[in-house]
């Protein structure tokens, strides 16, 4: 048993031999050792496993690696500039204390970037509704919401 999957991850083309049942998150974490993508619930509730597939936020714990065949995948490791400069959304989380333990953070940032692209001038209530698929147990969301509002503005301003 086994199947070969090919995709682009953080700009690099790669192929990997996986079992048919291998989840996309398992490929990312275990095969590629990109451990910034986390598993918090296994049931698509918490959003810690959020990555981008062809530019859209998806929950990588709830899809098979095979479903990403040929896709362009972006994980949290590929978000900052090559010189290490934070993406405006990452910077906004840092400036606004939008993270505490850091475990939900990669998924939050990946979802936030996708959200900001679709809703460049979102207000607090829209951001709260846009976070429906991401759980955080530390921050009470207050500073995550502030971060995303600020990060969206910075992204829209092309910073």
């Amino acid at each position: 048993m086994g199947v070969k999957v090919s995709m682009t991850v953080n700009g690099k083309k790669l192929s990997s031999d996986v079992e048919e049942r291998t989840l996309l998150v398992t490929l990312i974490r275990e095969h590629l050792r990109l451990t910034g993508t986390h598993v918090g619930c296994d049931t698509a509730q918490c959003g810690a496993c959020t990555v981008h597939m062809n530019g859209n936020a998806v929950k990588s714990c709830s899809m098979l690696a095979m479903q990403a065949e040929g896709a362009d995948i972006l994980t949290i490791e590929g978000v900052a500039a090559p010189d290490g400069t934070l993406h405006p959304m990452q910077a906004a989380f840092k400036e606004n204390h939008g993270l505490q333990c850091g475990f939900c953070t990669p998924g939050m940032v990946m979802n936030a970037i996708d959200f900001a692209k679709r809703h460049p001038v979102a207000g607090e209530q829209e951001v709260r509704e846009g976070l429906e698929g991401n759980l955080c147990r530390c921050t009470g969301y207050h500073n995550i919401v502030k971060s995303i509002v600020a990060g969206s503005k910075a992204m829209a301003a092309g910073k």
Partner: protein
Amino acid sequence: MGAPLIGARIERKEDYRFLTGAGQYTDDVVLPGQTHAVFVRSPHAHAKIRSIRKDEALKKPGVLALFTGEDLAAAKVGGLPCGWLITDVNGQPMKEPAHPCLAQGKVRYVGDHVAVVIAETLEEAHEAAEAVHVDYEVLPSVVDTASASSKGAPQLHENAPDNTCYVWAIGDKSVVDKAFAGAAHVTRLDLVNNRLIPNAVEPRAATGAYSRADQSYTLYVSNQNPHVERLLMTAFVLSLPEHKVRVVAPDVGGGFGSKIYIYAEDVVVTWAAKQINRPVKWTAERSESFVSDAHGRDHVTVAEMAMDKDGKFLAMRVHTTANVGAYLSTFASCVPTILYATLLAGQYTTPVIYCEVKAVFSNTTPVDAYRGAGRPEATYVVERLVETAAREMKLDPAEIRRRNFIRSFPYQTPVALCYDTGDYEATLDGALKLADVAGYAARKKASEAKGRLRGLGYAAYIEACGIAPSAVAGSLGARAGLFEAGEVRVHPTGSVTVFTGSHSHGQGHETTFAQVVADRLGIGIESVDIVHGDTSKVLFGMGTYGSRSIAVGGTAIVKALDKIIAKGKKIAAHLLEASESDIEYDRGVFKVSGTDKQKMFGEVAFAAYVPHNYPHDKLEPGLNENAFYDPANFTFPAGTYVCEVEIDPDTGKVSVERFTAVDDFGKIINPMIVDGQVHGGLTQGIGQALTEGCIYDKDSGQLLTGSFMDYSIPRADDVPSFKVDTRETPCTHNPLGVKGCGEAGAIGAPAAMMNAITDALGVKDVPMPATPQTVWRALQNKKAA
């Protein structure tokens, strides 16, 4: 050097790694040759194990080992210990039934550990675990707190008759009864403090490894106190030499109490690593977290307050039944006693208090400390009583509090604690203003015009943080010390590594502690690194819980810094050819007072490690100091929370419109981090009040709320943005004047929420969580009445 760092809003040093996916949590650690463990768990709440058939599982591909309780017993692996001995009303020790790591003959809750399968891959371990055949004889079970000790209830443990762990009391009942007999008014409430499931977003994880080279073990574990984990595991469970075990708690994705404890999985992977001579890794699935992480709260209480005609509190009487679950978790016994009843004075001068607590076993997951631990339960009792009393006596809820506030410190409460300082009027006044209570009437009118109900509720909480001193805790039954340790290592070129026994799992110690160090030494914060979470690096530590890190751990660091500066003065005196008593240290510079002769901190550090010109006759080379700090008392953060809710009477849905918190945490190191701690605590408290309730099926003992689909932790649109502010009365007995802020929100919020909801509905009580269905029913019952 620049502006003071203590009190400054500084962005966190740890954020870059978390934001770029470079954090290293336990499951991210991969050891060469690691294997994977899956636990076979009980599907029944209560059953005898007739037999376990291993043969089929052992034949599955990739299987390396399969262990059951019998194997552990044969290897003399001990049970999990409880760290606090409670002595009951008759002077007898609490009942401590055996708590085996893998079940011995009987399972006592759904999720209880029956066997462990270890295989080459996780998938293989899962497949083999499904092939382990356990023959159970299902027994009747009891999950309900109120009836667990009633006659005829199924018995969990032979040595705990009536499922009772202890009946414990504080206060003089006859004096309290007498005060009640003469009271002008008595307010009584029957309260349930709902069971909660902590749900840190990082599931628990543990990887054990064994080295044949030096017969040593390493355990990576998602844990809040690695030294305590090591001490309990080596001394009480595995009987290993402590110096041969290293426990590493790397980045930890939230704890909230649930990662304080020594768990069966931690022990089993450590022990099994030697048996198979390969690392053994286990990471919980969320469904395992729900059944196996220690739960929180679960009290059933009758509470009464006696008052004179002016609303002055005369006495308080409380009877609580606390559900400890199927076995005693590490600190289960002290939570509903020492951390609960001692807080029942609240912010008030109530002269006499009696509290009796019965702790009961049930066929449920063990219950232990969860953010606040005893203090949210106490605040719920006090503040629901106070608000209800105000309504019954037609007093303004702020006014009844003012009439009873403690105003002179130190204040000895009738329930053992002695508050060192506080200003409850200041936090109340601050909260009323920030919440714009003056404008409430207009907002209520606007809600009513929309057909909505609006309610206002207060909670004026107090908490006791940084449990201390060790000697007092010991006299109350603690089986551990409650100090903290720190080490300051100044490197030859003047940068500094600080090792702390505290543990950060979101609290931001790498920043806050670095601020303290950089401020005290007058050096740049970028020159300071904080190391925690590894017993092979940190000298010792009691870890992080009970909002103790800055008050206890921070003080240990300050004491080590004092020693560094004292030694630095000696070195500087030698270098500057001056008397040591003439050397002053000010923000990075050792100076001869009254002169312009000086040496920079870095120069002194260099001299300590390149001691060519050095007072060798008086001083050892090097600049490295340890300190242990055992506090003189608890710290007592306090504050007032004001909550405003709007309820849709057609659906019962509660919307939190405004939430205001004004807290007194003493001196604040980093206001940004403090605000964040409050926001998070408030949301957990709002979760308890509004959305979170652990439900077991009464007949089968099955956990019905076993996933995020059934157990609702707050999402972003369940809570508002918060208004938070602070007032400051510095703690009198630690050098930083700090009190701790990690739990306050979770302590004060439930009472404020339920006071607001009952105000809106015009009813005496509504059970938590106030889900739409519960609120709607309360409204229908009121209409029917």
